[in-house]
């Protein structure tokens, strides 16, 4: 049952970042960092994803979208907040239009510091999240195969 660890597919969403962290997320996919080594695929589709990787602070308009995306991901799933903005609102925390970190909207499992967050740091974060993913999978299994529908929040 250790396959979650070996095949984490991720969905990246920019919930209002400055692009700095986003391009570092993209850089992770490219030859120098190549996260496909870990079986990571950037799916672009919440329904195929295991990890929701969010960059940027959540602004007012993105609140609902982040919820939608999270709700559409099948269980088990984890959320990684990458960058100061995603963790706390970062440099934009004082803005009238920014709610703050991702955890204001959905539960966050791993925080990855940086501004911009380095690709290596993202890899660290994702690797940490895999243990949590496995734990959640085991939990789900224990709760019985019923997989009672979790309400999309």
């Amino acid at each position, binding site marked *: 049952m250790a396959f979650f660890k070996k095949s984490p597919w991720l969905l990246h*969403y920019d919930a209002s970042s400055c692009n700095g962290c986003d391009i570092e997320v993209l850089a992770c996919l490219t030859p120098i960092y190549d996260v496909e080594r870990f079986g990571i695929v950037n799916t672009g*589709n*919440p329904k195929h994803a295991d990890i929701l990787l969010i960059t940027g602070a959540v602004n007012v308009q993105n609140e609902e*979208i982040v919820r*939608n995306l999270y709700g559409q991901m099948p269980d088990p799933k984890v959320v990684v907040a990458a960058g100061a903005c995603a963790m706390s609102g970062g440099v934009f925390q004082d803005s009238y239009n920014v709610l703050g970190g991702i955890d204001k909207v959905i539960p966050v499992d791993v925080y990855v510091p940086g501004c911009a967050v380095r690709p290596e740091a993202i890899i660290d974060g994702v690797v940490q999240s895999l243990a949590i993913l496995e734990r959640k999978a085991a939990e789900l299994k224990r709760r019985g195969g*019923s997989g009672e*529908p979790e309400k999309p929040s």
Partner: protein
Amino acid sequence: METPLKAQHLVIFLLLFPLGPALLLAAVRGAGFRRLLVGAGAAATAAASVALAAVLPSGETLWIAFASPFADQAVIVGEIVVTLFLLAACRRIRRREAWIPVVIAAQGLLLGWAEFGRDLPPVATPLYVDPFSALMAAIIGIVGGLIALYSPGYMADHHRRHPEEKDRRRGFFFLIFLFLSAMFGVVFANHLLWLYFFWEITTLCSFLMIGYTGTEEATRNAFRALGMNALGGLAFALAIVLAGTSSSAPTLEFARVAAPGAALLPAALLAFAGLTKSAQLPFSSWLLGAMVAPTPVSALLHSSTMVKAGVFVVVKLAPALHGTRTGFLLALVGGTTFLAAALLAVTQSHAKRVLAWSTVSNLGLIVACAGVGTPETLWAAAMLILFHAVAKALLFLGVGAIEHRVGSRDIEDMGGLIATRPRLAIAMIVGILGMFLAPFGMLISKWACLKALADHNLLLAVLLAFGSGPTLFFWTKWLGKLISVPSGARASDDVVGDERLALSVLVLLTAGACGLFPLAAAWFVDPWILGLFGAPLALLTRSNLLIMAAMLGMLVILPAISFLQPREPRRVPPYLAGANAGGDAFTGALGATHAVSLRNYYLADFFEENAIVRTATGLALLLTVGMLALA
């Protein structure tokens, strides 16, 4: 020549019986009585046609001598009446179409000369029946009967919706039964003059039915149909003149007894007539125009039976055409039509137009098969006729029923039908599956065709390969529309009454034809081929049948399995790029909330309708002219 009494009687019964209900229906007004009459008439006709199929000794051709001396005279009088009637109808014609009455008059004169001016030997057996005819008769009896059954309800509804139209239902039902009688005539006639007579009656029925609603468009289209069919009629008349000589009677036998090539010209002319009747390119436009008629008419005349008369005759001619250059060109006309019509069907969103083009396309395939004329292709042609008649009738009636529920014939308005009107949708799905998918009907025939064509006519095999792509495309997207379920779709009014009966039986028939086609092949088609060529044909090997049965079985079992899943899976809204706003609505530009709105592809700028029509018509015209010239 010994004739078992029963089959002979049944043939004559089928020919004459429908006239009874026809005349009665012309007289009655009451809706209840009409329904009863139609039901009884249809049932009796269907029963008789089935009985005929049952009693016909396997594999034999029965020649039926018609004892009455009045019969020939009656036919002659009938012909004169029909011709005069048509000429009278041409009073209202526009200047541009003034050639139509001229052609009709020419037909009449030619026929008059053939009958009175020449000394033709009498025809001993004006009627006959062979397994293929019996199959065709069964199709006409059952499918025709069902369509007739469906009509009273439909027409009542039709007139409720169009109060502005004149109620000419008495004429309508008269024509339906008259038409059935004439179709049996076409199927059973051996005497060419008789055949011609029945042929002309179908032309007449079609003309009157297309003009039924009396709108300007309907009238225009009716005359277009009349004109093209009159051209065919003229060719027919010429064929009779050529086929009948003082030594040989004018019968359909010329096509099978003469050495191949000897009777080429009359055969080519008759084939030409067949092309017009079955709306092959370059004559397809009338069939599209005919779609203005009420839907039962489209189903009965313009897809499942009358247009089949055209290909039926062409198939009968196959022995005379086989191996000739004329036959080759004829096959190419069919092949061209098959491909072009399939492309055109892709560009249409009007359900009846899609059905019309697909009809033309399928008839093209049958013509192609007939033109090649080998045992395998004739087998395929016969099976195609069967499958197409059943499935197309179902589709037309389904579209009619949908139109009356949904208020539109546009395929785009049929989205989610599986959820809102599941019964209707299932009827349509069965029809569509029957039309193109393995292991169902049409595909079997295509399979047989392709095998035969690979040996005999490579060019056609290529056309067939190319045509199957677009065919797949337009049927699948229609299916897709039907089963695409918007969230929150609720079931609402479904089919009722007679419509339901007719549709259900057709669904069963289509399914039956698909599942039990080997039986149809064994009873009708194989014996017929054996009779024609003197050699059996073993197309359906056991292993292939096994495979097909397994595929069919899978299609039945799989839904069962997947609905037996223990738990209901979790429901999530569709992916809308994160902009979901409940159900399948999303927050769109400028904050507006839209429901998901989807339209199928019609590729109108890729398959340009006008260009295709022009090119294909031109090509087909050339081929047709060549076909006649080479004869």
